C-alpha cells in the first residue's frame, strides 16, 4: 500500500535547472512510467524519489509523509538499476540478502525470504553463483529479486531493460507486467523507449527538458496528445506533420486547406482562431491511407517491405512523410502516390505546438491496463 506525491519538485546543479517544478500523483498499485528523450530529467526525478539525489526544492510525499530528509533505505523503496549494480563479490543469495544482513536479520529468516523471491523469479538453481557467471537476463532477475526481498511499498526501475537484447527485452517486459500483478505493488519505471511505456504503464509521464509535458494513460497520450512533442514522441513510426491553413471553424469542427489546395473538415475545435491561421496537421503513419482519390500527393523515396506491412517514405513538398501500407502494395520507388486520411484520425497543432482539442474523446482514451482483463469500475483520468 503506497502512494507517492511530488509537489513542485525542482532540482538544479549549480546554475543548470534539471527539473523545473514537477507535480505528480501516483496512486497505490499503479504502474507509472517516466518517459522522455535522454537528458529530459527522468532519471534525476527517479533518483530524487529514491533519495539518492536531494531535491533543491519541493516536497516528496510517500503515503502522505514528507520524505525529503529521509535516507534512501528508510523510504520503503527498492530500486533496480540500469546496470543492475549487483555486488560482484557476492553470490546471488548474498546479493539478495544484503539489505537484510545490514538490518541484522537472522540468517535463516534471510534465507527464507531470499528463497521465496528466488522462487518467484526462477532463480533457485543460481543462488550460489556470482553475478559474472550469469547471463544478462539472469542478472536482471537477480536485481529484481534484490528489490523484491526488501518488500518495498514502491519499486523503482531505472531503464532496467536497456542492456538486454531485443528478444529478451520483450520477454522481460511481459515478466515485469506479470510481476506487477503478482506483487500488487506500486511501480515507477523510467525508460526512453516509448514501446515499453505503452505496453506496461497504467500512467505515462512524458518529460522533456525537466518539465512534465503530459500525464495520462497510454491510449490517452496516443489519441489525445497535449502537444506536438508528445504527439511525435508517442507512437512508432513518428507522427507526420503537414503545414495547413485554417479555412473556417464552427461547432461541427474545422475546415482546413491542405497542401495542393483541397479542403477537409475535421472534428476538431478551432474556436478562437481566425480563418487563414497557419496550423500543423498531424496524422500517424498508420492512419495515412493510400487512395487514388486522396487529397494529398507525393513521390516515393524509399520503400521498406516488412512482409506484412510496407513503409513508404513519401516526399511531399519539403516534408518526408511516412505511410504504413499493406504488405502487398505494388508501388516502386519514384512512383507518385495519392493518399488521404480519415478526419477522426487527424490532429491539429497551433503555432505554439499545442493541440487543438478534439470534439470527441476516443473511446479507449481512458483505458487502464487492468481494464484489458476484466471490467472494472469507472475509470479515472
Amino acid at each position: 500500500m503506497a502512494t507517492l506525491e511530488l509537489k513542485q519538485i525542482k532540482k538544479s546543479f549549480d546554475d543548470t535547472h534539471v527539473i523545473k517544478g514537477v507535480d505528480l500523483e501516483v496512486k497505490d498499485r499503479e504502474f507509472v512510467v517516466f518517459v522522455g528523450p535522454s537528458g529530459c530529467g527522468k532519471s534525476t526525478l527517479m533518483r530524487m524519489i529514491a533519495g539518492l539525489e536531494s531535491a533543491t526544492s519541493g516536497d516528496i510525499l510517500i503515503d502522505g509523509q514528507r520524505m525529503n530528509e529521509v535516507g534512501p533505505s528508510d523510504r520503503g523503496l527498492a530500486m533496480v538499476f540500469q546496470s543492475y549494480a549487483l555486488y560482484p563479490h557476492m553470490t546471488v543469495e548474498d546479493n539478495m540478502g544484503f539489505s537484510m544482513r545490514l538490518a541484522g536479520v537472522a540468517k535463516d529468516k534471510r534465507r527464507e525470504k531470499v528463497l521465496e523471491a528466488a522462487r518467484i523469479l526462477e532463480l533457485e538453481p543460481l543462488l550460489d553463483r556470482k553475478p559474472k557467471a550469469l547471463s544478462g537476463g539472469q542478472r536482471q532477475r537477480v536485481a529484481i529479486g534484490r528489490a523484491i526481498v526488501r518488500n518495498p511499498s514502491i519499486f523503482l526501475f531505472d531503464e532496467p531493460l536497456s542492456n538486454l537484447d531485443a528478444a529478451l527485452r520483450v520477454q522481460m517486459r511481459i515478466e515485469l507486467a506479470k510481476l506487477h500483478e503478482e506483487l500488487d505493488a506500486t511501480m515507477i519505471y523510467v525508460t526512453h523507449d516509448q514501446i515499453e511505456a505503452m505496453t506496461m504503464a497504467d500512467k505515462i509521464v512524458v518529460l522533456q527538458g525537466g518539465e512534465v509535458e503530459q500525464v495520462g494513460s497510454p491510449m490517452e497520450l496516443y489519441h489525445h496528445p497535449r502537444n506536438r512533442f508528445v504527439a511525435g514522441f508517442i507512437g512508432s513510426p513518428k507522427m507526420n506533420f503537414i503545414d495547413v491553413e485554417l479555412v473556417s471553424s464552427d461547432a461541427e469542427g474545422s475546415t482546413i486547406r491542405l497542401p495542393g489546395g483541397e479542403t477537409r473538415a475535421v472534428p476538431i475545435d478551432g474556436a478562437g482562431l481566425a480563418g487563414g491561421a497557419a496550423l500543423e496537421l498531424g496524422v500517424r503513419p498508420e492512419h495515412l491511407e493510400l487512395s487514388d482519390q486522396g487529397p494529398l500527393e507525393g513521390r516515393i523515396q524509399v520503400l521498406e517491405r516488412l512482409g506484412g506491412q510496407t513503409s513508404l517514405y513519401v516526399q511531399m513538398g519539403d516534408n518526408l512523410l511516412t505511410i504504413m501500407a499493406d504488405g502487398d502494395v505494388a508501388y516502386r520507388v519514384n512512383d507518385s502516390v495519392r493518399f488521404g486520411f480519415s478526419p477522426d484520425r487527424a490532429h491539429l497543432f497551433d503555432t505554439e505546438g499545442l493541440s487543438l482539442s478534439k470534439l470527441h474523446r476516443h473511446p479507449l482514451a481512458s483505458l487502464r491496463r487492468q481494464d484489458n482483463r476484466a471490467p472494472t469500475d469507472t475509470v479515472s483520468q
Partner: protein
Amino acid sequence: MTTTRTKLMTGVAAPGRQRSALTEALLNRRLWLGVLGWTVAIVIFFPIFWMVLTGFKTEAEAIAEPSLIFSPTLDSYAEVQSRAGYAKFAINSVVVAFGSTLLALLIAIPSAYSMAFLPTKRTKGTLLWMLSTKMLPPVGVLVPIYLLFRDVGLLDTRTGLIIVYTLMNLPIVVWMLYTFFKDMPKDILEAGRMDGAGTLQEVLYLLLPLTLPGIASTGLLAVILSWNEAFWSLNLTSSQAAPLTAYIASFSSPEGLFWAKLSAASTMAIAPILVFGWLTQKQMVRGLTFGAVK
C-alpha cells in the same frame, strides 16, 4: 590399398601445403622477432643476472676473469647473514617501507574516497595541488628537513624515515586510489545505500572488497618506492635506522670491495621488490603517470 592411402595422404597434404606458405612467413617473422626480443631482454637483464651469479661465487672467483663455470657456494650469503649488520638493515627496510605504506594508505583512503564519490568544485584543484607537491625536488628541502630532524631528534630514526616516506608517497597513493575508486561503478554504492548501508558499511562491505586489487597494487608501489628510496635514507640515517639502500652504499668504500658479499646482499635486497614489481607492473603505470597513461 596403396592407391587409397596415397589419395588420402595427398588429400590431407594439399590444404596443409597451402597453409604452410603463409604460416612459414609468419613463423619466420616470429622467430627473428623472438631472437631479437630475447637478445635485448638478456642484455638489459644481464647486470642483474651477473650480480645474482656472483653472489654464489667465492670472493676469489668473483674478481677473477668472468666465467659462468664455477661451483656455486652459499658462503657469501651465510657471511652476509651472520654479520650482525645485515639483519638490522633489512629489518629497518621492512619496517620503514611497510610502515610508511600502511600509514599512507590509512591517510589516503578517506581522502581518495571523498574525492571519487563526493566530488566538489575544489576536488580537481586539490588533486593537482597534491601532484605538484611531488614536483618539489628533495634536494631543495634537504637542508631544512635535516635541521628540523636534528632539532627534534628524528635524525637516524625509523620514525623519521617513515614520516618522510609517507609524505613522499602520499600524493601518488591518493592519486592511484582515486583512479581505482573512480573506476568503481557508482551504481553499486548507490544500490548499497538503497539497501541501507551507511558510509562505514559502504566502505567496509563494498568499496574495500571491490577495490582490493587496486589498493594492493597501490600499496605495493608505495612499498617499492620506499624500499628503493636512496636520497633521504642516505642523508637522514647513519647507523641506527639505515635501511638496505644505505647498507649497500657502504660497499662503495674501497675497503668494502667484497664483490661476492656485495652481490649476495644486493640480491637479497632486491629480490622481494623485483617480484612485487613484476606482479604489479600494469597497475603501476597508472600511479607512476598519475593516471595520464592507462
